[in-house]
C-alpha cells in the first residue's frame, strides 16, 4: 500500500508567477521524506502538486511530470479526484468538519464519496483508522461528539485518521505540527514513525530537528531572492544532509548561518 513517486523537471506557476523551478526527485515507498527550507521557497506548493491540490488555487498550473509507479499524475486521462484518493493530505491547521461527529469525520472520505457501507464495517473502519492514528483510546467513549471539541493535537490526529481511512498510497503532511504544543508534536512524530511501515509519507516542516528525527531523506528548498522561483537545492539521506551537506547554502541554513 505505498507507491514510489518520481518527479521530473517540474515547474509550478501561480498565474504568471513562477513559483518553483525544475524540481526532479524520487520519493521512495515506505519511507519518510522531509522538505525543509525558508518560508516562501515553494516546499508547500511543491507538496500540493503531488496530489493535484495546487490546481485548486485559481491560476495554479504545472509543467513537467509527476510519476507515481510510472503513471503520470498530470496526463490528460487522469482525474484529479482519483489522484487525491490515492494521495492523502494533512494540513497545517487541523480542520475537522464542524458539522460532523468524530466518527463521521473519520468516515468522511468514504461517506462523502457515497460508498455504501454496512454499520459494522463502518464501525470497524473508524476504529482501525483511529487506532492507526493513536487516537482510539482518547475518543472511544465520545465518537458521536463533535470533532471540534477535541484539543488541537487530537484534532490533528483526527485529521490523520480521516486521511488514512480512505486507504491512500501516499500521505502528504504540510507542517502538521506547527500549530501544536511539544507533547502533541511528539505524539504526531511517533505516529509518522508508525505510518511509514505502510505508507509513503512526505512531510514539510519548518522544524529542522523534526526533519532530522522523523525523516529518512531530506530535501532542502531555497530561493535566490524574493520574486525568484524556489528550487530544490539538494536532496539526500537525512544523515548526510544534516552532517555533511554537499551545498554550502544547505549547511548555512541548517547551522543557522542563513542569509
Amino acid at each position: 500500500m505505498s507507491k514510489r513517486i518520481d518527479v521530473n523537471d517540474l515547474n509550478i506557476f501561480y498565474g504568471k508567477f513562477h513559483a518553483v523551478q525544475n524540481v526532479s526527485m524520487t520519493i521512495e515507498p515506505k519511507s519518510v521524506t522531509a522538505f525543509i527550507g525558508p518560508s516562501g521557497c515553494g516546499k508547500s506548493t511543491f507538496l500540493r502538486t503531488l496530489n493535484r491540490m495546487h490546481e485548486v488555487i485559481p491560476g495554479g498550473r504545472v509543467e513537467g511530470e509527476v510519476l507515481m509507479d510510472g503513471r503520470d499524475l498530470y496526463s490528460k486521462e487522469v482525474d484529479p479526484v482519483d489522484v487525491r484518493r490515492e494521495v492523502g493530505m494533512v494540513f497545517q491547521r487541523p480542520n475537522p468538519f464542524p458539522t460532523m461527529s468524530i466518527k463521521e469525520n473519520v468516515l468522511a472520505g468514504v461517506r462523502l464519496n457515497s460508498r455504501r457501507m454496512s454499520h459494522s464495517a463502518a464501525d470497524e473502519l473508524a476504529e482501525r483508522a483511529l487506532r492507526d492514528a493513536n487516537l482510539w483510546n482518547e475518543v472511544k467513549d465520545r465518537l458521536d461528539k463533535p470533532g471540534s471539541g477535541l484539543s488541537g493535537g487530537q484534532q490533528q490526529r483526527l485529521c490523520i485518521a480521516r486521511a488514512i481511512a480512505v486507504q491512500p498510497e501516499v500521505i502528504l503532511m504540510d507542517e502538521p505540527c506547527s500549530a501544536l504544543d511539544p507533547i502533541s508534536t511528539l505524539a504526531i512524530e511517533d505516529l509518522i514513525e508508525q505510518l511509514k511501515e505502510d505508507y509513503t509519507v512526505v512531510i514539510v516542516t519548518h522544524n529542522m530537528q523534526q526533519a532530522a528525527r522523523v525523516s529518512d531523506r531530506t530535501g532542502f528548498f531555497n530561493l535566490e531572492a524574493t520574486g525568484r522561483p524556489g528550487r530544490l537545492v539538494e536532496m539526500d539521506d537525512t544523515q548526510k544532509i544534516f552532517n555533511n551537506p554537499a551545498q554550502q547554502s544547505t549547511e548555512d541554513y541548517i547551522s543557522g548561518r542563513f542569509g
Partner: protein
Amino acid sequence: MAIQTQHTGSDVTPPPRKRGPMEGIELSTVRPAGDRIGYAVLLGALALAATLWLAGGLNVVLAAVVGFLVYLAGVYTAYRVVGGRRVATDHVMRGLVYGAFILAVLPLVSLLWTVVGQGIPRAFHPDFLLQTMNGVTGVQDEATMQEGAPMVGGAYHAVVGTLVITGIATVLSVPIGLFTAIYLVEYSNKNALSHVIRFLVDVMTGIPSIVAGLFAFALWAMVFGIGTKDALAGAVALSVLMIPTVVRSSEEMLRIVPNDLREASLALGVPKWRTVAKVVLPTAASGLASGVTLAIARVIGETAPLLVAVGYARGLNLNPVEGPMNSLAVYAYYMFTRPLNPGFRDPSLERAWAAALLLVLLVVALNLTARLIAKLFAPKTGR
C-alpha cells in the same frame, strides 16, 4: 461611572492648575464627580419640559426638545464647575448618544404601540380569522354601527393568500438565489461573468417594488393576455425583489465557510460538487436558512406589486393560476382607502388595523423562526 477611572493615581503629583510655560497645551485635570448631579439636572430638565407642555401650552415635541437642550446646557455647566472640562464634555456626549438612541427607538415603539393597540380588538376574533369578505357590504357595517349588530367579514382569505403568494415566491427565489450564490463563490473564480452578475444583483436590490409589480403584470399581459391577474404573477414580482437579497446573504454565508474545509474535503478525493453539497452547504446551513427567512420577511409586507399583479379578491381563492387573490397588506390598504361604507368607516378601519397586526405578527414569527433555525443548524461545538 467611568470618570473615576480616568483620575490619575494619588502617587502622581497633580499638574499645576495655572498655565505654565507650555502655552497651548492645557494640562486638564480630571476631578471625580458623582452621577448624582447628572440625575438632578435630568430631573430638572424633565420637570421643565413637563411644565412647558402642560402649563405653558407648548407642543409636546417642542417641549421635549427644549428640555433636552436645557439638560445638555445644565449638565455641561454643572460638571464644568465640579469635574473640569473633560468630564463636562463626556456628559454632554453621553447625553447626545442617549438622545439619538431615544430618537431612533421612539418611532418604532410608537408604531408597534399603535398597531397593537388598534389591531388587538379585532385581530384575534374568530370571526375575523375564519371569515372572508364574500358578501360583506356597507349595509352590514352600517347595521353594526347603528344597531349594534355583530361585525362580519374577516381576513381569512388574505392570510391564506399571503401565505400562498409568499410561499410560491420563496420556492421560486431560493433555488435561483442559492445556486447563483454557489456559482459566485465556488465556481466563478472571480471571472468577468461573476462581476457582471454581482453588479446586476446590486442593481436589482435597488429596484422599486412597484417596478417589479409592473414587470410581472406586463409579462403576464404578454403571455396570457392583457389584464391577467393571478397569484403566480404576484409571486414572480416578489421573487424579483427577493432573489437579490437571497443571493447577497447566501454569498456572504458561503464565503465565510473556511477554505480549509473545502481543501480537506477535496484532498480526501471528494469531487467538487459533493464537497459543495455535503461540506460547504451544511456548514453554512444556519446562516443560509436565516438569510432566506429574513428575505421572506422582507417581501411578505409588499403591497404595490401585489396590487398591480394579483389584484383584489373578496373571497377565498386557493388557485394561484386563476384569478385575483387577496393578501394581508393589500387587504389593509383596501380597507383603509376604500371603506365598504364611506359613511361608516370605523368597521373597515378596524379590519385594516387587525390585518396590519397579523402581518406584523407574521414577520415577528418569521424572525423568531430564523433565529431558531440558526441555532438548530449551527455547527456543533463542545465536548
